[in-house]
């Protein structure tokens, strides 16, 4: 497998190419644009046999994504920030129709004030729309998780769409080393797309009809059960990937770092985890028993795995790169709910909004906060 130095956006595009999507509807928005630019170049060079549809808005991009997938092909799109917000109307239609579309979100703050920079407000705000959300820390993880995500979403026991969330700029515009798998390897891992149902003039069906009150809840219950089933499928697909490609990210849902005898730990998603690794290493050198929990799957949420991972902790500090205004960090809400019956102390810091750098100093302060009996707050 060739190892190269590559911008994470281009690496994402290389990962997508290996999965052979047939239709890529796109509308440009910073900072995801490099991903679809690279795909456009691959199509133009004849390296990727796909149709790129240039649409007039993200609403149309998402609609075309649904339409193409319904017609029976593998699809891809990418967006950020207000682009995802404009897709919002279509997101639950895709998930409700059980279409396994895959989309990258290069996470960017929602305006106003205008910010082109990273935080998690775009995708976290969309977390209840029935899409699997996997969050990545590095370029390598972005490639590997893209390949996994198609397989997870298309599993007939799941049939849900998936978002691959990578930090805008903080990851999307970074050049680093990555291994790009060979096509034959990916072909052996990810079979050709076989739609569970599709629009076919020979066998007409209706998609997305009205559900009266006597059946609507059953549809939602089935979607929820598919999400819970996805917890197993994410793990299984991750394990299979790890065996075949030799790279693993925890159990696929959570990745634990130096948690063996940890008393206090940080938890977060995306690139801040990388900086947190360095902070944990330094505190360990100082004799502090600290560790780190990386959340890869925000939806479905790995409650059982989290309870298990935290059972010997005294304190857990959750870093949110988003805030549910008027309450608290949404990841913190999820974590506290999952650990309701545990007696671990938990606190929450809001950090990195609108591209504010999350520094080692920030994370050190946060990680020591519970030990030093300090409350959470804002890492400004």
């Amino acid at each position, binding site marked *: 497998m060739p190892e190269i*130095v590559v*911008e994470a956006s281009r690496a994402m595009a290389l990962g997508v190419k290996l999965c052979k999507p047939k239709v890529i509807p796109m509308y440009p928005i910073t900072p995801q644009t490099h991903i679809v630019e690279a795909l456009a170049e691959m199509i133009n060079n004849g390296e990727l046999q796909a149709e790129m549809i240039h649409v007039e808005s993200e609403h149309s991009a998402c609609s075309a994504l649904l339409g193409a997938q319904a017609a029976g092909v593998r699809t891809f799109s990418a967006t950020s920030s207000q682009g995802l917000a404009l897709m919002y109307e279509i997101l639950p239609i895709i998930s409700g129709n059980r279409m396994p579309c895959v989309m990258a979100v290069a996470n960017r703050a929602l305006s106003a004030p205008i910010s*082109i*920079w990273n935080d998690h407000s775009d995708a976290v705000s969309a977390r209840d729309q029935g899409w699997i959300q996997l969050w990545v820390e590095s370029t390598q993880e972005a490639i590997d998780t893209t390949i996994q995500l198609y397989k997870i979403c298309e599993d007939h026991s799941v049939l849900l769409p998936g978002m691959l969330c990578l930090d805008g*700029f*903080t*990851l999307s*515009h*970074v*050049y*680093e*080393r990555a291994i790009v798998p060979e096509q034959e390897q990916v072909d052996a891992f990810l079979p050709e797309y076989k739609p569970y149902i599709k629009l076919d003039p020979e066998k007409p069906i209706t998609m997305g009809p009205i559900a009266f009150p006597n059946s609507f809840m059953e549809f939602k219950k089935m979607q929820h059960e598919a999400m819970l089933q996805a917890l197993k499928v994410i793990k299984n697909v991750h394990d299979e990937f790890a065996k075949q490609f030799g790279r693993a990210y925890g159990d696929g849902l959570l990745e634990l770092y130096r948690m063996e005898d940890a008393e206090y730990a940080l938890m977060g998603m995306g*690139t*801040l985890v*990388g*900086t947190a*690794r*360095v902070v944990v290493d330094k505190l360990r050198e100082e004799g502090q028993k600290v560790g780190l929990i990386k959340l890869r799957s925000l939806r479905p949420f790995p409650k059982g795995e989290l309870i298990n991972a935290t059972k010997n902790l005294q304190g857990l500090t959750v870093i949110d790169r988003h805030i549910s205004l008027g309450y608290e960090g949404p990841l913190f809400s999820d974590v506290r709910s999952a650990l309701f019956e545990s007696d671990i102390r938990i606190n929450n810091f809001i950090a990195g909004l609108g*591209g504010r*750098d*999350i*520094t*080692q100093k920030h994370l050190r302060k946060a990680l020591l906060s519970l030990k030093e009996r300090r409350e959470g707050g804002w890492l400004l």
Partner: protein
Amino acid sequence: MPLKEIRIHGRGGQGAVTASEVLAVAAFYDGKYCQAFPSFGVERRGAPVEAFTRIADEPINIREHVYEPDYVILLDPTLLSSVDVARGVKDSGIIIINSNRPASEFRLNTKAKIETIDMTAAAMEIIGKPFVNIASLGAFAAITAEITLESVFKAIDQEFAHKKAVAELNKKAAEKLYKMFRG
């Protein structure tokens, strides 16, 4: 080798971001881990730009900005009137300035060593245009010994894979600057 951090200052259009990427690729060819990223500003031609590279023997996990660089490359000395290029540079660090004036003439608020080298003259002579971003890596290789000139050449070939003539000119300019320090 512990983690080394490099900050490159230029103006929009002078290629500081490209230089940071080519530097990362050169380090990769030396068998190192690397990371390169721009300062994520709003891109405007002529405006001050910063770009960063990290080089290490081990995988690089850190994702915060570069605050205390080991090395600074200043592509455009006119930035000195508006940008504190010595900001945060380690006492043991080196600031490489593109200038035909001696280092002693630059009074910067730093304990880091200052080296000057006339990149523009070399670029004008060899490339015929004041493009110093790629050539500066020859000076960086000579002054810091963090990367080899051979790997800089390989990285230039990769960057300009479809513009072989441009690659050759930049390699020649980089070599000239390298030899000014290591004859």
